[in-house]
């Protein structure tokens, strides 16, 4: 059935779910795509690969690494073979994420107000109070429409059983959505006509939905409230994304120094004097937002912003203090939260997680460390992580010592085998591990998730780490329409 040499040379790996192949035949969702490319000469794929690289470079879709005074342009590696998801599977993912977000949002409201979930004994109070992202400053602060998690990027992986598992809920300032948009626009140029033929669901509505949600949060009863995107500035590695989103939404891209607080209202400095700001989509972390309340040495934020927020004079997106809900140690309580707040069974599975503050579990994890992933609870980007199967004895020993000193800051999980998918690397198709990060938007009118998301790829052979800071890349993610297989 498969004749193309590129495809026949591809080796499926044992005990790993392959997104495209199943026992040497092609999964139904990929059939249209494969039939479109299998007759192409091999040079054509190489040409497409080169075209993609050029398009990223010429459109300035780059991040800049500053070393020795000179900025070096790098592109976020992009693989030209899309990752394809069936419609029914997507509906499952969508329902699962919506359910999870509702519960997490209720949890945040509860934890910063009455704390029923602690009083009812579902989550140990010590766990919450020992979380560095739990902001006492947010206690009894009423946020607009009771929404905390306006933008979430939930990381999903597919285990060898073919099921999707939630790996992380990123509820603070998840990034990468601009790559979802760019990947799609590049793919449409690489494979003309293939998107409509496959009924691939569009993702372009994301900026529109986000803008609508941001406008809905303004509370000044005027027709054109001022919405801004607060960025740390051009030296931030995600600056491209900040600029892109601001441009696509037509809102002002500001830095901390552009804003000033007067009498508990936030203003921006313009050529025509001060102008009041109603909604701030911030891409600056909590601790840098307001030097009067959080880190006093931060120049990225605005003095007095917290007080203006607390008074309800400005809306901040996402809310402050969300880190307590996506803390890796709180993660294992999310299924409980879903049952507690929604009285529903969780739709998406979660990875078994062992708290290292529990002496028995700690002992177990120490003994079986080679089969575990150890993570620091408040780190992200693939930092502070140990994958037992590929760690040296010395690395494991270092982690054991660190855990013993500060057990609350670590969790252990069994190694989950991420699914793999073919990537076009060095002229051949090779299996690489992937995850999936759909972006959910929670606004006063409900939760919207654009079909798709960012598929991140671990480009190193055999690696399980997909983070861009650790040599990861990305792929376009196609969600097929209801009439396709």
């Amino acid at each position: 059935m498969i004749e193309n040499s590129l495809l026949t040379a591809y080796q499926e790996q044992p005990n790993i779910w392959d997104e495209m192949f199943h026992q040497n035949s092609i999964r139904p969702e990929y059939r249209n795509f494969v039939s479109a490319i299998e007759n192409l000469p091999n040079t054509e794929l190489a040409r497409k690969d080169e075209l993609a690289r050029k398009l990223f470079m010429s459109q300035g879709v780059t991040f800049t690494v500053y070393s020795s005074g000179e900025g070096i342009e790098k592109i976020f590696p992009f693989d030209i073979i899309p990752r394809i998801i069936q419609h029914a599977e997507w509906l499952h993912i969508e329902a699962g994420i919506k359910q999870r977000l509702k519960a997490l949002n209720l949890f945040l409201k509860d934890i910063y107000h009455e704390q029923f979930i602690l009083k009812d004994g579902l989550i140990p109070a010590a766990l919450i109070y020992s979380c560095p992202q739990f902001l006492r400053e947010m206690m009894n602060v009423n946020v607009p429409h009771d929404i905390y998690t306006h933008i979430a990027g939930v990381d999903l992986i597919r285990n060898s059983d073919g099921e999707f598992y939630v790996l992380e809920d990123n509820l603070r300032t998840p990034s990468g959505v601009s790559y979802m948009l760019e990947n799609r626009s590049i793919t449409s140029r690489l494979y003309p006509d293939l998107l409509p033929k496959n009924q691939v669901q569009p993702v372009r509505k994301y900026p529109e939905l986000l803008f609508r949600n941001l406008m809905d949060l303004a509370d000044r009863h005027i027709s054109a409230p001022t919405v801004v995107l607060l960025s740390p500035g051009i030296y931030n590695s995600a600056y491209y994304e900040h600029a892109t989103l601001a441009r696509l939404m037509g809102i002002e891209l500001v830095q901390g120094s552009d804003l000033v607080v007067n009498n508990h209202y936030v203003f921006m400095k313009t050529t025509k004097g001060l102008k009041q700001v109603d909604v701030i989509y911030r891409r600056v972390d909590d601790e840098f937002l307001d030097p009067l309340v959080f880190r006093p040495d931060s120049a990225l934020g605005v003095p007095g912003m917290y007080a203006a927020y607390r008074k309800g004079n400005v809306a901040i997106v996402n809310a402050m203090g969300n880190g307590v809900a996506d803390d890796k140690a709180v993660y294992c309580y999310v299924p409980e939260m879903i049952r507690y707040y929604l009285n529903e069974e969780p739709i998406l599975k979660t990875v078994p997680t062992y708290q290292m503050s529990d002496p028995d579990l700690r002992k177990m994890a120490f003994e079986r460390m080679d089969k575990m992933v150890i993570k620091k609870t408040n780190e992200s980007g693939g930092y502070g992580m140990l994958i037992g199967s590929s760690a040296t004895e010395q690395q494991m020993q270092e982690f054991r010592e660190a855990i013993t000193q500060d057990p609350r800051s670590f969790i252990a999980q069994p190694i989950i085998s991420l699914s793999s998918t073919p990537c076009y690397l060095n002229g051949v198709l090779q299996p690489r591990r992937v995850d999936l990060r759909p972006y959910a938007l929670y606004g006063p009118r409900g939760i919207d998730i654009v079909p798709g998301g960012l598929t991140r790829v671990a480009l190193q052979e055999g690696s399980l780490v997909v983070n861009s800071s650790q040599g990861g890349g990305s792929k376009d993610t196609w969600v097929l329409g209801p009439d396709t297989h």
Partner: protein
Amino acid sequence: MLSRVADTIYWLARYMDRTQAMLQVIRTHYQASQDSPSEFSWRSLLYSYGGSLTLEEVGAMERDTPRVLERIILDKDNPTSAYNSVLQARENARAVQDHITQEVWHCLNSFYHAIREGEIPEQIRFGDPLSGIDALMRHGLVFIGAVQNTMPRDESYGYLNLGKLLERALQTTDTLRVQWLNVAAQPLPEREVPQLRYLVHSMSGQELYLKTYRGNFNPDSVLQFVLHNAYFTHSLHSCLNRLSWYFERLKSDSLPESHQKLEFLIGRLANQVKYTDASARNPQQLNEFLLDTRKELLNIAVALGKNYLGKS
């Protein structure tokens, strides 16, 4: 518009006009160097674009054309090189991507990549420098076209033009002052050529000049042309006129008192230039006039910074 954004756009335009002006000056100078290689020196350009060079370094370099081109066009360590001008313009564009069009950003991005590495630098170093410089200037022209054709006529367009025209007026004033020293140094009967030609050439004015004065290069006409010709886009008169026109259009987006201050400064300078009695016969007085004009232009820039661009 945010003051920071206005400032960034304004400087983006200044850097781009500066790049274009210096490339044209370098181009003319290079051609001149090929005309009379024996007595030729790059000294004046090394002072303007060479960065912080000591007298000895200038002396060692001034007759070594490849080294000079490397230093003033491509050198990454020379803050006043064309490379760094383009780099600054692009960094500024990157910071205000949401206020310029994609086309403008793409132009600047490809200009930066073109001057950084690849064919053009090779051409300047080892091939025909003129072709290399021309290729760079073409990038600059594409930028101007992209601005003209795609930018909405809003505040950002206004600040782009203010930056461009202010920089151009400064460049014209400086080029005239520096090059006039060469002109004035020549004994009287020989003043016609070739320095006057180079002067007009280095402001891209040769064609219009030839048409206007039928090829008669004399100091009075050249001075008249560079200071007062209404059709010459680099003349002081033209720069200041358009500066005041674009500034007037910002009125509705300004605080009244800020606008008044700037309007006064620009109007006063335009009239000083219009009614000056500086003439080719009195180089001393001309020099003072040009220094004075320069000071006034900088005053305008400072006032703009204070009143519009959030500088204190």
